[in-house]
C-alpha cells in the first residue's frame, strides 16, 4: 500500500527526515505522533506529493487522484459552509447526511470565514470525507475540537475508514484522539522513526525517546 | 508574454481611439453653434482639417482664443486644437513635431526657435498688450509715479516687501527677467522674492494671498479681478512693458524631423496665420474685452 525506502528530506537547518524503511498496509489507520519539529508535517507532505524527497523511493498503490491531503490550518473558501462542502464533492455524496454527521446542519448557511476554530475544523473534515478518497493524509485535523466533539469526530473518522476501507495517516498531539482512531502508531523524533507498531507499542516502547515521550503522554 | 502585452496594448489603443474619435466629432459640432450660425455657409472641410496650435496659457486663459477661433473654424471648416502651456512647453511641443504653429510672446525664445531651424515663417508679430505691475493697493514700495518698469522693480527691491514671480520660463517670466536685468538687480536669492513655477492665474492668486507685487499681462488680471481683492494695477503702459504676440509656423522639413514620421499641417497653419492677420480678425481682436471689461485688451500692430 505505502512503501518507503531510504527516504531523506532536509526540513530545517538542523533536521533531516530520514526513514530507511517503512510500510503501511491497506486499511491501516496510522497516528503520527511526536513533538513539534519532529517531521510529521514533512512526512505527510511528501506522501501527498506536495514535497519532493531528496533521496529514496515512495511507493503508493492508490492513484494520486484518490489520495486526499489536508494541510494544517487548511483554507476555507469564500461562501457558505454548504458551498465549501460542495467544492469538496467529487461524486454524488449525500450532502445532507454529511452535514448531519459532522454536526454542521445548523451552520450550513453560515459564511465559512465566520466559523469558530472548532467549527472550521469540522467543516474541513467534512470536506475531506466528501471527496471519498481511498487514502487520507490529515495534518492535525482535530486539534481545535473540544474533548467531547473530538471524540465524536474521531469515531466518525474511524467509522468512515472502516466502512470504505480507506487508509488513514493523520498527525495529532492528543493521545486520546490517537487511541480512539489508530490501529498503528508512528512516533517521530528529530526526523527519525522512534517507534512504529500497534497498540502494544504504546505500553512497551523500545527506544529511549519513545519511553520518555510516552511517559509524558498520560495515557 | 512581451508579445502578448504589446498586442493587448495595440488592441486597446485602437479600441479607445475608435471610442473617442466618434465622441469628439460629435461634441464639436454641438459645441460651437453660435459661430456657425453667425457666419455664412461653412465651406467644405479641408483635406487635413486639424490644425494643432501650441500657445501660452495667457492667451487661452484670458479667453481670447475661445472668442476668436469659432469664427475661423466656421468660415474655413478647419478644426483648431489648442494645447496651452507656458511658452517654454509650447515651444517644446512645436520642436517635438506636435504643433503646426505657435502663438507665443517671448522674443528671445522665438528667435532661438528660428535659429534652430524650426520656423517656416518669420516672427509674425501682430498684436500686443501691456504687462502691468500689480500689487497691494496701498503701494508700500511707492512705484505708482515712477517712469519705467525698471524703476519700479528697483523700488520694489529696495522696499523688500515682496514679489511673486512665475518662475516657469514663460513669456511673462522672461519679460520679468529682462526687466530685472535692465534694473541691474539679481533678485533670485533675495528673501522677498518668491519664484513659484506656476501659471499666470496661480501666480496672481498667490500674490493676492501674500499681498505682494507681481508682473502680469493685463488681460489675465482683468479676467480674474473679482477673485483678487488685495491687488490693484499700480503701473501700466510704460514703454518697457509692451507684450508682443507673434505667430510662428512650424517648418515641415525641419532638420530635427528628418527620419521621423512628423507631419506638419502647413496648409492649415498658413490658413490660420492668414486669417489671424486679416482685417476681420483685427476687428474682432480690437473689440475683445470692451464689453466685459470696458476697455480694449489687445492692440494691433500697424502693418
Amino acid at each position, binding site marked *: 500500500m505505502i512503501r518507503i525506502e531510504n527516504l531523506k528530506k532536509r526540513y530545517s537547518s538542523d533536521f533531516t527526515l530520514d526513514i530507511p524503511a517503512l510500510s503501511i498496509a491497506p486499511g491501516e489507520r496510522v497516528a503520527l505522533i511526536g513533538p513539534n519539529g519532529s517531521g510529521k508535517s514533512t512526512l505527510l507532505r511528501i506522501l*501527498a506529493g*506536495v514535497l519532493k524527497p531528496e533521496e529514496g523511493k515512495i511507493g503508493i498503490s492508490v492513484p*494520486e487522484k484518490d*489520495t*486526499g*491531503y489536508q*494541510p494544517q*490550518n*487548511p*483554507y476555507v*473558501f*469564500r461562501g457558505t459552509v454548504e458551498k465549501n462542502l460542495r467544492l*469538496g464533492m467529487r461524486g454524488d455524496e449525500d450532502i445532507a447526511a454529511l452535514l448531519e454527521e459532522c454536526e454542521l446542519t445548523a451552520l450550513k448557511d453560515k*459564511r465559512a470565514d465566520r466559523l469558530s476554530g472548532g467549527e472550521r475544523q469540522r467543516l474541513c473534515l467534512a470536506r*475531506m470525507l466528501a*471527496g471519498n478518497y481511498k487514502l487520507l*493524509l490529515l495534518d492535525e485535523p482535530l486539534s481545535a475540537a473540544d474533548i467531547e466533539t473530538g471524540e465524536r469526530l474521531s469515531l466518525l473518522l474511524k467509522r468512515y475508514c472502516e466502512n470504505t476501507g480507506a487508509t488513514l495517516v493523520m498527525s495529532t498531539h492528543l493521545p486520546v484522539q490517537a487511541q480512539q482512531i489508530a490501529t498503528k502508531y508512528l512516533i517521530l523524533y528529530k526526523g527519525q522513526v522512534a517507534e512504529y507498531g500497534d497498540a502494544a507499542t504504546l505500553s512497551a516502547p523500545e527506544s529511549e525517546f519513545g519511553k520518555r515521550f510516552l511517559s509524558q503522554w498520560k495515557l | 508574454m512581451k508579445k502578448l*502585452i504589446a498586442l*493587448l*496594448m495595440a488592441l*486597446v*489603443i485602437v*479600441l*479607445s*481611439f475608435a*471610442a*473617442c474619435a466618434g*465622441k*469628439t466629432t460629435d*461634441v464639436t459640432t*454641438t*459645441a460651437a453653434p453660435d459661430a456657425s450660425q453667425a457666419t455664412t455657409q461653412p465651406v467644405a472641410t479641408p483635406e487635413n482639417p486639424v490644425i*494643432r496650435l501650441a500657445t501660452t*496659457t495667457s492667451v487661452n*486663459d484670458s479667453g481670447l482664443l475661445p472668442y476668436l477661433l469659432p469664427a475661423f473654424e466656421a468660415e474655413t471648416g478647419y478644426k483648431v*486644437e*489648442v*494645447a*496651452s*502651456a507656458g511658452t517654454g512647453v509650447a515651444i517644446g*511641443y512645436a*520642436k*517635438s*513635431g*506636435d504643433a503646426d504653429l505657435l502663438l507665443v510672446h517671448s522674443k528671445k525664445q522665438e528667435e532661438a526657435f528660428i535659429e534652430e531651424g524650426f520656423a517656416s515663417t518669420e516672427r509674425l508679430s501682430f498684436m500686443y498688450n501691456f504687462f502691468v505691475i500689480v500689487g497691494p493697493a496701498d503701494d508700500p514700495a511707492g512705484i505708482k509715479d515712477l517712469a519705467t518698469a525698471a524703476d519700479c522693480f528697483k523700488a520694489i527691491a529696495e522696499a523688500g516687501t515682496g514679489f511673486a514671480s512665475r518662475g516657469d520660463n514663460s513669456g511673462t517670466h522672461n519679460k520679468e527677467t529682462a526687466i530685472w536685468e535692465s534694473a541691474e538687480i539679481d533678485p533670485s536669492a533675495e528673501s522677498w522674492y518668491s519664484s513659484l513655477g506656476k*501659471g*499666470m*492665474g*496661480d501666480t496672481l492668486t498667490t500674490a493676492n494671498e501674500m499681498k505682494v507685487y507681481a508682473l502680469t499681462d493685463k488681460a*489675465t488680471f482683468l*479676467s*480674474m479681478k*473679482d*477673485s*483678487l481683492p488685495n491687488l490693484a494695477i499700480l503701473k501700466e503702459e510704460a514703454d518697457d512693458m509692451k507684450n508682443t504676440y507673434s505667430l510662428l509656423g512650424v517648418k515641415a522639413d525641419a532638420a*530635427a*524631423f528628418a527620419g*521621423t*514620421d*512628423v507631419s506638419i499641417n502647413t496648409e492649415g497653419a498658413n490658413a490660420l496665420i492668414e486669417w489671424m492677420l486679416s482685417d476681420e480678425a483685427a476687428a474682432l481682436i480690437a473689440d475683445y474685452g470692451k464689453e466685459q471689461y470696458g476697455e480694449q485688451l489687445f492692440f494691433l500692430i500697424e502693418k
Partner: protein
Amino acid sequence: MDYLKEAFTLLLHPDAELMQIIGTTLTMSFFSTSISCILGMPLGVLLGKRRFIGRSLLLRIVNTLMGLPPVVAGLIVFMLFRGVGPFGSLHLMFSVPIMVIAQVLLITPVVIGLSAAAAGEKSAMILETARGMRFSGGRQTSLLLRECAPQFVTIALMGFGRSIAEVGAVSLVGGNIQYKTRVMTTAILLESNKGDFRRALALGVILMLISLIANIPAYTLQEKMK
C-alpha cells in the same frame, strides 16, 4: 455651501462642454483602469504565488514604480510618443489613447503590487489545500482568483480613483485641448488658474460625486462576494 449649490446646478444643467469633459474623463479612466487590471492582476498573482529567482528584485522594482510621480510617467510617454520620438509615427500626441497609455504606465505597477500582496498572503495555503483536494491546475488557479476577487474589486477601484484624480500625466501628454482631451482634473486646474474658483470647486464636487457613484456598485458587489 454656495459652491455645493453651484455644483448641483451645473450637474443638473450641464453645458455641452461639461458633458464632453465628463465623457472623456470616464472613457479615459475606464480604459486605463481596465488595461492596468488586465495587465497587472495576472502578473501580480504570478508574482505573489510563485517563488522564482529574481522575484524579490522584481517586487522591489514594482514597489518603486508604485511611487512613480504622475508627471514623470507623463514625461516618459511624452518623450516616447512626441512627433520626433521613437513612436512619433503613431501620431498619438494630444489624444485620449495617449492619456490612457500614460495612465497605464502609472497604474499598472500599483495593480501589480497590490495584487501580489493580495495573492501572496494566502496563495500558499489556498494552493496547498486545493492541491490536497486533487483539483486540476486550472481549477487551482481559478479558485485562487476567485478567492482574491473581493480584493481585486478594491484594487480596480483604487486604480480608477488614481486615474480619475490624476492630472500631472494627462495634462502633459493630453495638452488639455478643449472638446478633445480636457478631463475633469485638467479642467479644474484650468478654471482655478483662471481664478474661477467657484467653477473649479463645482467641478471638484462633480468629480467626487462620480467617484462616489463608481464606488457604490463596487461596494455592493464586494459585499455579495463574501
